[in-house]
């Protein structure tokens, strides 16, 4: 298996002692699998993703348990050893591309960043690969965008640039942390289609994090439901969506807007 997380526990120092953001999280991801993690704000889903990527600050945040990626225990690696994986084998995209893209750097430079760090490619090779990745991310006019800046692009295009940058080294696992939450529904649907297409073409595994089970259902085979740092339910997406076992999962599904009118006093009646 590609990724195996066992008994992951993430603890923060807190004014009143310690706060366990993630209590006991275990998950296996096989090559090419698309797995969703769903939960409310504070359920620990993003924290888990950041731990897998090795993005948590080790000085203050305690991470215990095991994260094995392609047989290597990531939690035992030094920071420089870990860097050999970040952006290369493992990649991440975030909710808000405007904050993860550098506003002062051209698009092309940012898409190529991982190539400069991890490969010995020359400028021409880098550009060719960057344009390939941009096309894969749904930006066929990469040549035109190459010299533009993030503020010149729409939100959806910025997210595509992030996806291109994340894919430029052909990682085996892409972690997508609420990548469509900040986007319009029509753009959201397009980005989900692009991710599906990337999965089909590249056989990449995706760990997709969202608060919205509907979005997860549009993309994932399996889902893990998190609440207050723990997995409360897991299974094939259709099974969980149609036959949720836990009250919490039922509540997540029921909260999705449906075609009903809200009435005053409805929350109490």
């Amino acid at each position, binding site marked *: 298996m590609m990724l195996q997380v066992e008994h992951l526990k993430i603890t923060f120092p807190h004014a009143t002692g310690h706060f366990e953001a993630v209590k006991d999280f275990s998950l296996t991801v096989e090559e090419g699998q698309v797995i969703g993690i769903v939960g409310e704000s504070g359920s620990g889903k993003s924290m888990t993703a950041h731990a897998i990527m090795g993005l948590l600050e080790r000085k203050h945040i305690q991470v215990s348990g095991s994260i094995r990626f392609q047989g290597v225990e990531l939690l035992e690696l030094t920071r420089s050893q870990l860097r050999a994986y970040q952006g290369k084998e493992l990649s991440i995209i975030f909710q808000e591309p405007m904050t993860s893209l550098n506003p002062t750097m051209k698009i092309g430079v940012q898409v190529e960043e991982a190539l400069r760090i991890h490969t010995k490619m020359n400028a021409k090779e880098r550009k060719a690969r960057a344009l390939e990745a941009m096309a894969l991310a749904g930006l066929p006019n990469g040549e035109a965008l190459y010299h533009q800046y993030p503020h010149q692009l729409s939100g959806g295009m910025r997210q595509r640039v992030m996806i291109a940058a994340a894919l430029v080294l052909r990682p085996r696992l892409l972690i997508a942390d609420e990548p469509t939450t900040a986007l319009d*529904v029509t753009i959201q649907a397009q980005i989900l289609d692009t991710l599906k297409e990337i999965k089909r073409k590249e056989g990449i595994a995706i760990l997709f994090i969202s608060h919205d089970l*509907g979005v997860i259902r549009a993309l994932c085979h399996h889902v893990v439901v998190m609440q207050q740092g723990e997995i409360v339910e897991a299974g094939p997406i259709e099974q969980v969506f149609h036959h949720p076992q836990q009250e919490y999962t039922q*509540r997540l599904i029921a909260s999705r807007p449906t075609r009903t009118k809200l009435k005053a006093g409805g929350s109490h009646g």
Partner: protein
Amino acid sequence: MAEQPMVKIQGLNSFYGKGHERKQVLRNVSLTLSPGEVLGIVGESGSGKSTLAKCILGVVKEVEGALEVNAFRPQMVFQDPYGSLNPAKSVGWFLEEPLRVLGIKDKKERRQQAVDMLRQVGLGEEHYARRPSQLSGGQRQRVAIAAALIGGSRLIVLDEPVSALDVTMQAQILQLLVDLKAKFHLSYLFISHDLAVVYQICDRVAVMYQGEIVEQGDVDTIYDHPQHDYTKKLLQASLALEE
């Protein structure tokens, strides 16, 4: 006497920039909002929906056409309560600011009104001294709503008020808005890109595309018989994620 509309707009055009750069952002927009009504404005980013809101609030003054707003100090609630609450100030300060502007000098009275309003939005006295960083996203949005209401406004423009929230929090905030509307006889202009959310709260909906209202009407009619291609696309995107 027939009830005067809260907002009446006829043939509104709005522009940004000057000379060659001048760009029309609103084209011949006409709409009416009656007291107690919730009108949804849907459209994608860049369709002009937020500009329309700013015209109604009087922030954008570069307009042509007829624009009539018969509401005392219309207020706005934004998508991102992080961005609209000053991180250095307490909830109490934020709620009392409109009261200070209205000339209420008595500290005790301001505090009492602020605490009363906190209760109306499902918070309490314990939140009065907190800073935005000590609140959850949903609580922050409740504070923003309280601040919009505390000065006595009856017309509230809600610009994507639940788009940044979790689905469970979304449902709670929408319910709160419906309850407050009934209690205070409010009118809302509800801006959103999410037709599913719009359905839950709006009586009528106007669909904007490239600065124009391409169709408007009763929510059920628009949902069941969309005329414009963009509306159809929007409905598909929204409903593809349902059921």
